[in-house]
């Protein structure tokens, strides 16, 4: 580990830039949620002195608004562009039959194992053409693309990726029938992948 590792530890506080409009909306939502939580907590006879969770939504951008990114995490403009380039005008289906397996907590962001898999018959008329793997907050969002053929037999690819910090990882599957599938997984990263800093 050398000095070019600029953020060896993910700060616990979430620092992010919020646009004025989102700040106002988020603030209003935070107050509303805080009141609801407080009411619920009082009803349950709990201690209400606990600070409520940070519920201000991150700025929604055109492309990322099409997939369910985690609230409270930022995503890069480059990610938005990469996502838009892949999705184009497709209507992505979220979740099944696409699965993205990742550890919830990655102690070493340099080596994070992943598996992208689709339940697909892999026949000549219905097979997974391409699997994309994107990171929302690495310096370069495009991690990998895998091109499959019906002979692959099983649409599943595993490997190891780098994550610079805690973020969402996004998998996209392009099926030969025209369907586009999306899966999002959040990974907490303790020590960021230096190579990507």
């Amino acid at each position, binding site marked *: 580990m050398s000095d070019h590792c600029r953020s060896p530890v993910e700060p616990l506080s979430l620092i992010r830039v919020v646009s004025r409009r989102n700040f106002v909306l988020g603030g209003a939502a935070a107050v509303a949620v805080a009141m609801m939580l407080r009411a619920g907590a009082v009803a349950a006879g709990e201690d209400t002195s606990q600070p409520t969770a940070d519920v201000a939504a991150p700025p929604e951008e055109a492309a990322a608004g099409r997939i369910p990114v985690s609230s409270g995490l930022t995503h890069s403009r480059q990610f938005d562009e990469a996502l838009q380039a892949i999705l184009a005008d497709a209507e992505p289906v979220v979740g099944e039959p696409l699965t993205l397996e990742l550890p919830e907590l990655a102690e070493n962001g340099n080596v994070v194992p992943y598996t992208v898999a689709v339940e697909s018959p892999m026949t000549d008329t219905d097979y997974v053409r391409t699997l994309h793997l994107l990171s929302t907050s690495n310096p370069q969002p*495009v*991690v990998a693309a895998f091109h499959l*053929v019906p*002979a692959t037999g*099983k649409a599943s690819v595993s*490997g190891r*990726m*780098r994550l610079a910090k805690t973020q969402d990882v996004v998998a996209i599957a392009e099926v030969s029938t025209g369907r586009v599938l999306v899966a999002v997984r959040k990974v907490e990263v303790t020590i960021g992948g230096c*190579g990507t*800093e």
Partner: protein
Amino acid sequence: MTNKTRIKLPETSAVGDVIEIRALINHVMETGNRKDASGTAIPRNIVKSLVVTFGSVTIFKAEFGPGISSNPFVAFYLRVPGPGEFVFTWEDDAGIKTVERTPLFVG
């Protein structure tokens, strides 16, 4: 100079089986984002692609970005059409191609 590789296949398989293929290449996967001790940017050099053919048919292609860990490893599948030979071809930014040929035994 080519890079050291490791390929793992099942020792035996039957026609129609879906088998897992594991392929690894030793490579630094330098992202191009880092600087050396004197502050000079270290140029990017990653393995950018892996193409796998089986009996001259392309069965798998991977395009890698800098977000792939060093010594890139990938596991994928094939429905065995019969005996044959895999050819794995990796190419990095420096233009170095590493080619590995591995037979598949079917019995």
